[in-house]
């Protein structure tokens, strides 16, 4: 940012996502950070980094639907399950190459998501939330009951083969997390870029128009049915990818990973991160994945002083979880992304207030 603002000389330059040197420096720093991470973290922290990367993909997907299109969805867990089960059944049971089965899982989840998005054509707000809650319950019920033992063959879970592709196979304990990190980091970056691009173009703008004023959107020629269903499809595609990756990365699929709690955790991510912001989805995914870990570490450190924290760890984690969401809703409803913008503004305007 120059003293008098940014002066573009062409539409092309204005359409770039970054305009100042500071923004490019920040991008480079983030790139360096991503490269450095696997060299400095141990396996435990690498597994957390990998969980974050998967959560980023899922959170971007949910934000496209909830934050950008204004369609509240509590069906995230169910769609993650669809992605996970589809990919695993295709790769392990039908013998498809894993990347191909993941791609199919993405498409199939998009189709299922579109189907469960149909109530969105008639319902808004809380009523839609209840309808998507139904989709969560239906999918959860189906995979839990596993009628005819089609999904898990009566076991209740599926063991997933180690990820392999064109002769390359992810290695054992010492390299497992690091190799997955590379795969997940690339996919997460692609997901973030796809999300960011979507809302630079007419299609993404029509989603936001539906969110802000659906009647006016129709009056300027946005086909509400098409826009809403496309949003459900795109969003579910991202979520399906996250689900499929969870399955192949954790190498076990069972219904406990896709409950309503997961749906709410993802909603919390995008609320804390910032609704209607791709960067916010990333911040939220990082924050909500790290929070329980940090609480556990703090509880362990304080064990000698306040043994209660360690003894009641799950309860303390839940309580803190709730507290954090409430605090965010009160202090900065627009989430971490807005907080970051405010910090930047503070320094930009310093020594003035505004």
């Amino acid at each position: 940012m120059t003293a008098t603002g940014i002066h573009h000389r062409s539409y092309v330059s204005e359409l770039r996502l970054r305009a100042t040197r500071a923004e490019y420096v920040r991008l480079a720093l983030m790139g360096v950070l991503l490269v450095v991470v696997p060299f400095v973290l141990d396996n435990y922290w690498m597994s957390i980094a990998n969980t974050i990367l998967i959560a980023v993909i899922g959170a971007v997907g949910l934000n496209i639907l909830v934050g950008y299109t204004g369609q509240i969805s509590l069906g995230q867990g169910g769609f993650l399950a669809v992605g996970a089960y589809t990919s695993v059944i295709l790769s392990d049971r039908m013998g498809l190459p894993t990347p191909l089965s993941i791609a199919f899982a993405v498409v199939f989840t998009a189709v299922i998501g579109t189907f469960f998005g149909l109530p969105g054509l008639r319902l808004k707000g809380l009523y839609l939330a209840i309808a998507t809650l139904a989709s969560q319950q239906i999918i959860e019920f189906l995979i839990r009951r596993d009628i005819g033992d089609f999904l898990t063959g009566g076991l209740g879970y599926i063991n997933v083969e180690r990820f392999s592709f064109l002769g390359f196979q992810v290695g054992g304990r010492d390299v497992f997390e690091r190799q997955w990190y590379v795969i997940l980091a690339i996919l997460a970056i692609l997901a973030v870029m796809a999300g960011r691009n979507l809302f630079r173009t007419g299609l993404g703008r029509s989603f936001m128009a539906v969110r802000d004023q659906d009647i006016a959107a129709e009056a300027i020629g946005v086909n509400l049915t098409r826009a809403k269903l496309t949003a459900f499809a795109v969003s579910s595609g991202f979520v399906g990818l996250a689900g499929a990756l969870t399955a192949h990365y954790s190498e076990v699929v069972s219904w406990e990973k896709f409950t309503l709690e997961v749906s709410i955790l993802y909603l919390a991510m995008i609320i804390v991160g910032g609704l209607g912001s791709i960067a916010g989805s990333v911040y939220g995914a990082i924050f909500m994945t790290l929070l329980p870990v940090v609480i556990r570490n703090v509880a362990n450190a304080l064990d000698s002083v306040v043994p209660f924290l360690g003894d009641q760890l799950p309860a303390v984690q839940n309580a803190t979880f709730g507290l954090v969401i409430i605090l965010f809703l009160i202090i900065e409803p627009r989430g971490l992304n807005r907080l970051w913008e405010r910090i930047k503004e503070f320094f930009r305007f310093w020594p003035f207030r505004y």
Partner: protein
Amino acid sequence: MLTRAYQHSLNGSHLPDGEPLLEVDAVSLRFGGVKALTDISFTVTQGHVHAIIGPNGAGKSSMLNCISGIYHPQEGEIRLHTAAADGTRTLSTLTKLPPHRIARLRVARSFQNIELFSHLTVLENLMLGRHIHMNHSVLASMLWFGPARRQEIQHRQLVEEVIDLLQLQAYRSKPVGALAYGIQKRVELGRALCIQPALLLLDEPMAGMNAEEKEDMARYILDVHELAGVTVVLIEHDMNVVMDISDRVSVLDFGRLIADGTPDEVKADPAVIEAYLGSEEEDADVREAVEHMQRLTEEESRG
């Protein structure tokens, strides 16, 4: 015609001036037992500023909502004449179409209570006005590739012309929710213009404005009409504005069309005068009621 600085024609109709553009034919609209519109017929001519006036609750906004497809009248038809650039004519029945299809026929509108996309910037709102002219796949959009990227640049040129025409340069990248009321009204006009409308429907574009803002808005509407040649249908309460800028006036009262003609004809129409000023008899009734109330209060204060 537009001056050289503007390269795009904002008028989306290829009909010659003076031909019928929109025919409202015996339209009736009911909400349950409430008759909002009863047997309304009038014709909007290409090249006109056509005003719809009437007291509050007369059904003016309902009429506009029927044209733009938000309401579907139970009886009657609304037909739009369109001509392609090569002169081929088509006649579309708007009463059977959903709003987004009507927008594709280049019928654009603004709303009485501003309905902008409040979290988006002025520029994004105007670019959304180009929605019907944009077409690209989800994949192209997510990859920022090909048509998706090209269209962003291409459509920006027309949007910038609208920004110039309506003098919105200073607000280009401001979120519209934070703008002053008068500016928001102007952005809404701009968004409708970006469609390159064949017919522009304006629902009280000057409501709640002071005299100066009204003058500005009237000037913009005249610019749109005279420079760009866009046919305008507008609802307005301010009689002076209506009589000044419109070529034809339709008057509604209690859901019925009570007059339809040039501003001078309408001004002289006894039915219109009665609707607006009330009849002599009603005046007498009101006077009597007021005097009665005064008597009562006087008696009360005397104890």
